[in-house]
């Protein structure tokens, strides 16, 4: 079961008290979490930590990280992540982002930090390719109760069955805060930033896009169009994974991250 959980460290970014995870040693992986909030107990994080220094902030408004009125969009959040990168003096970073975090990784990379070496986008949101205003890029999950969102997110984890009445209040509070922040940045425009299409040409770092073939939120056509929109991206299909490939197929995602970052480092 995937429950958001506490992260061990605290740092002030853009004036906001932020909790984060920073463990392991080796090449730096900056992991940007999905809409459900971060957890150090994720299998993907545990695997990557064996060979890499893994840094995972709880983004503003997620977990217990402070939010502010100047954070209204994923673009706004990307400046806080830039602060994190510079405050921790991270270099040669492999940025891995899942879903909302994948969108954030692209927003981040448009700011062209020389510290970012490559991106791995695990079923990223953030772009809209449809041109008919009456067609959505993604089904409107906000028409459903949050308990039902996992039907769109995961092909394997029975997240609908999460037993909120019996978890610690601290964990439930993290989930409720995370969902509110997800709505804040994802409500309108719905799960994308219209301005990003005019900025993605700046994402010149090597980029690997992972798409789970059971994804019920984004289609294969979407993932292909995404890969085409970025100047230096390729697409890899993760068999058996839903939108949260990191959750459904953590080993496959970890292998893809390690292979992509290793080959690029050796190149």
């Amino acid at each position, binding site marked *: 079961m995937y429950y958001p959980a506490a992260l061990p460290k605290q740092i002030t970014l853009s004036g906001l008290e932020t909790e984060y995870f920073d463990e392991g040693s080796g090449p730096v992986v900056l992991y940007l979490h999905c809409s459900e909030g971060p957890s150090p107990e994720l299998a993907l994080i545990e695997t990557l930590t064996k060979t890499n220094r893994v840094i995972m902030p709880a983004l503003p408004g997620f977990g217990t990280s402070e939010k502010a*009125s100047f954070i209204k969009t994923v673009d706004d959040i990307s400046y806080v992540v830039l602060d994190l990168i510079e405050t921790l003096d991270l270099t040669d970073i492999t940025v891995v982002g899942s879903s909302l975090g994948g969108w954030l990784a692209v927003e981040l990379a448009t700011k062209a930090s020389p510290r970012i070496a490559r991106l791995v986008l695990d079923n990223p949101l953030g772009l809209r390719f449809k041109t008919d205003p009456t067609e959505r890029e993604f089904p409107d999950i*906000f*028409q*459903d*109760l*949050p308990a*039902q969102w996992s039907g769109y997110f995961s092909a394997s984890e029975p997240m609908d069955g999460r037993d*909120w*009445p019996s*978890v610690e*209040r601290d964990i*439930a*509070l993290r*989930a*409720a*805060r995370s*969902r*509110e*922040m*997800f*709505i*804040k940045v994802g*409500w*309108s425009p719905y799960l994308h930033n219209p301005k990003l299409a005019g900025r993605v040409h700046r994402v010149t770092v090597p980029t690997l896009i992972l798409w789970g073939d059971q994804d019920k939120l984004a289609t294969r056509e979407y993932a292909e169009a995404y890969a085409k929109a970025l100047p230096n991206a390729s697409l890899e299909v993760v068999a058996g994974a839903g939108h949260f490939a990191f959750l459904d197929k953590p080993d496959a995602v970890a292998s893809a991250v390690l292979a992509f970052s290793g080959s690029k480092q050796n190149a």
Partner: protein
Amino acid sequence: MDVYFFSEQSHYPAWGKFDGMLRGDIPNKHGDPTVSGKLLNEYLDMYQLADQVGMNVMVNEHHIASTCMNNSITLTLAVLARITKNARLLGLGSIITNRPDPIRVAEEYSIVDAISGGRLDMGLVKGAGWELYASNANPSGGMDRFWEAHDLILAAMTRHEPFSWEGEHFDYRCVNLWPRPVQQDHPPVWFTGNSPGSAKLTAPKGYVNAAFLTGPAVRQTFDAYRETYEECHGHKAHPDRLAYLGMVACSRDKAQTERNIEAAFAYLASVARMRPAHVNPPGYSHYQAITSMMQTPPGAGPGGMGGGATSADDLAKAGILFWGEPERVVDQIAAFNELAGGFGHFLNMGQNAHQPYEDVRDSIELFGEFCLPELAKLTPAREPAAKESVNA
């Protein structure tokens, strides 16, 4: 106690044509525009009749809903300003959390106040959760928008030189309200407040707190208002700071009573026909409150409206439906008023679901003739000179 007549102005003939949700989902192809026009005119007739028998009137506003066709408080109030003579005109309320242009709200309310000669009661509300799906306003941060819109509307009505506004949510180069409202400094403000937490926000302002169909839980809400009001203002709140909305069906005979009760139950059944996700999307309520709801085991929460009452007698005791011959209706309202600790305004939800014009007409006439004089004795109105300062 004074009384405001109210109808949700539904397009009830569509309800049987669709199995799903009556808000959000029901396609408007099920609504016949000719029928809409006929019904809307009937609702205006009811309001006009309510004015003639001595009641005030109240309109509400919803969107994407077959349960309430009135999608603009001020459009309907503008008509009522012209066709009523004496009634106070309560809009409860304009959903300022979701309106991108609060100055438009101030302008339209001012028109209503001007045309009616100062009969407007100005309701400003947060709005139901499903309204966020109609307006597409962000569920998160709604109360911040609400308070800024409130401050801006009040500033527009009370400042008499042009000014600019550069707030967190709203940005105006030139605010200069023409016409000004007739009631100075501004028309009385009403908020809805169905919980002690809401009442505690309304009381410091001295505004009227209206509770809708909450049943006996209204006592805690009103007590929270009274307590907070006294702390903030140094004296007890007059009962005219509190209002309660309940369904009403006065009838002449048993057959009419049965028809009215059936319509009231049809309304109650319609309340549940809404997407669960639309009730309380993340961000609509404070995350701590949402956490408490998440952690409430299924079935352990509060029951539905009327506490799941299955009989008309239970609905009357629960303060949801006041029904029957006029004496009985007075007794029921008086008992509930006592339970609530006393309120100064009763909001008479006097047309429900498919209840036809003829039955509503009888109910309004009976209520006006027999109930109004009795209810006036329950909580006497203040002398006009002693009216609460609207800037309290």
